[in-house]
């Protein structure tokens, strides 16, 4: 039961008016989904093209913001390699709830053309992120990306903000030579060491 419903019921005894406010909140959230463009490869070009004058994302309310803390949606566009994955995961963790993820392009959906014979590509970003909309294509057209945002809008509208988000699996990423804490990112390991009170080994970054 929605939170607003419960408050309304306790206040007035009849939740009629307050249920519509709930729907209004969900509708308005869907109308302004600010997107974080996590573009690594070719799909990033189509993501940029979708934001610009011919295809114009802004009319859908979506605006590309490079800062994760300002955004609702992370659009992962492009191949994610094992080296890049901790960075994407960290940015995802920095986004405030409620947040959504669109996997754009074949590489983000399943590894795409790089599924076979590679040693360094993560086969689908849903190995470590909970994806809401999968958008196939290599690269998908900008109109397809806008359709994905519209689908996401339906999803946002149908899932109320008060219900919260349940992740049905533990999204950890097995990395070469370490677990989630010991990532392949030397900066993070160094920062973890510094925060724990140790001194860094050398003045230089590797």
């Amino acid at each position, binding site marked *: 039961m929605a939170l607003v419903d419960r408050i309304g019921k306790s206040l007035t005894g009849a939740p009629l008016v307050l249920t519509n406010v709930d729907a209004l909140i969900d509708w308005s959230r869907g109308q302004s989904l600010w997107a974080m463009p996590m573009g690594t490869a070719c799909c990033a070009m189509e993501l940029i093209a979708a934001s610009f004058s011919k295809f114009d994302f802004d009319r859908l309310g979506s605006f590309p913001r490079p800062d994760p803390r300002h955004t609702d949606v992370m659009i992962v566009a492009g191949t994610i390699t094992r080296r*890049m994955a901790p960075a994407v995961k960290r940015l995802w963790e920095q986004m405030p709830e409620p947040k959504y993820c669109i996997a754009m392009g074949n590489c983000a959906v399943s590894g795409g053309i790089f599924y076979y014979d590679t040693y360094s590509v993560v086969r689908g970003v849903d190995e470590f992120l909970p994806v809401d909309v999968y958008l196939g294509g290599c690269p998908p057209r900008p109109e397809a990306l806008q359709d994905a945002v519209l689908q996401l809008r339906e999803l946002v509208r149908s899932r109320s903000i008060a219900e919260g988000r349940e992740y049905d699996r533990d999204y950890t990423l097995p990395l070469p030579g370490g677990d989630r804490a010991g990532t392949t990112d030397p*900066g993070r390991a160094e920062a973890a060491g510094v925060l724990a009170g140790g001194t860094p080994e050398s003045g230089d970054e590797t």
Partner: protein
Amino acid sequence: MAIEVESRTPVHDEDGRAVEELVLNVGPAHPSTHGVCRIIAHLDGEVVTRAEPVIGYLHRGIEKMAENRTYLQIVPLTDRLDYVGSMYANWAYCRAVERLAGIGVPERAEYLRVITCELQRIASHMMSIGSTGADTGAFTMFVYAFDVRERVVELFEALTGSRLTYCYVRPGGVAADAPEGWLDDVRRVVGEMPARLAELDRLFFGNVIARGRLKGVGVLDVATAVAWGASGPVARGSGVGWDLRKSDTYSLYPRFDFDVPVGERGDAYDRARVRLWESVESCRIIEQALDQIEPGHVHAPGLPRLLKPRPGDAYDHIESARGSLGVYLVSDGSPRPYRMKVRSPAFCNLALLPLLAPGHTISDLVVILGSLDPVFGEVDR
């Protein structure tokens, strides 16, 4: 995210306070949309004392994958190398295969290759100049340049069916002939383009703020450019008049009359301006090619789909929008190459960043990175 590191020799300023060096991680995801490059910048206040690019965030192992693909199956992989310029990335690979296997290409196919490659050069330079505009804060420039790019991409969509990764140039020719009326569309678009490019020149490069942001930033002298293997607009902006279309005279370029713009000072302004004027010269080449093209085959007749070149190795290169893009193929007689190596110009140009950045501010660091025009599909492969 900033990590403060104790510097080895503490420096004291005039008031006697100890000044520490700041190590700033311009991480793999950052607002300037050049791709996944991580720069570890050592800062003294706002001035960069050392900048080291860390690459490999898009290393997909294309060279390893190519060892398990036939020669035709590698063409879509080469699309994804320099994804802003798939046409010429395909072409460099196909030239290497043709040299290895001894395949001749029909003339109409060569003309189509030249036309599409020059159109792709325009599209790629628009992406690069647009990002330069975005880096200096002129976001409108990005949108205007992308509009010019959209004209070219629409043409490619009519020709190949896709907007970005075309897989059009194949060993032995091109995939399919131009549809009816396409060449007239190209003529129309290319006829209007020099005026639009001149407008961009006036709006952006004539702007006093853009001049202030770009002039004197990231100066590269001739000796360093040659010694460090820089090529393309990065080298030409410094005055090195090295263009493979003129010096190596590959394909049909001897038949066309065009100039190669060369800069003087070697700063970011000259590099960006060289790119703009190269686009204008590309329009000239395309118009001449449209005048000269004749009907004919677009693919070498009788070519088997499963190529088995004789054992040996071959290298061939083209002048891409970023520099000299080469592909080195080693064959052992089987339908799959034994080794494919891509000589990426953006990889070689990016090695210049630690030389160009010191002494500039952190905001100029992004401008310098943009002026080197890296595309990380090509840098990391």
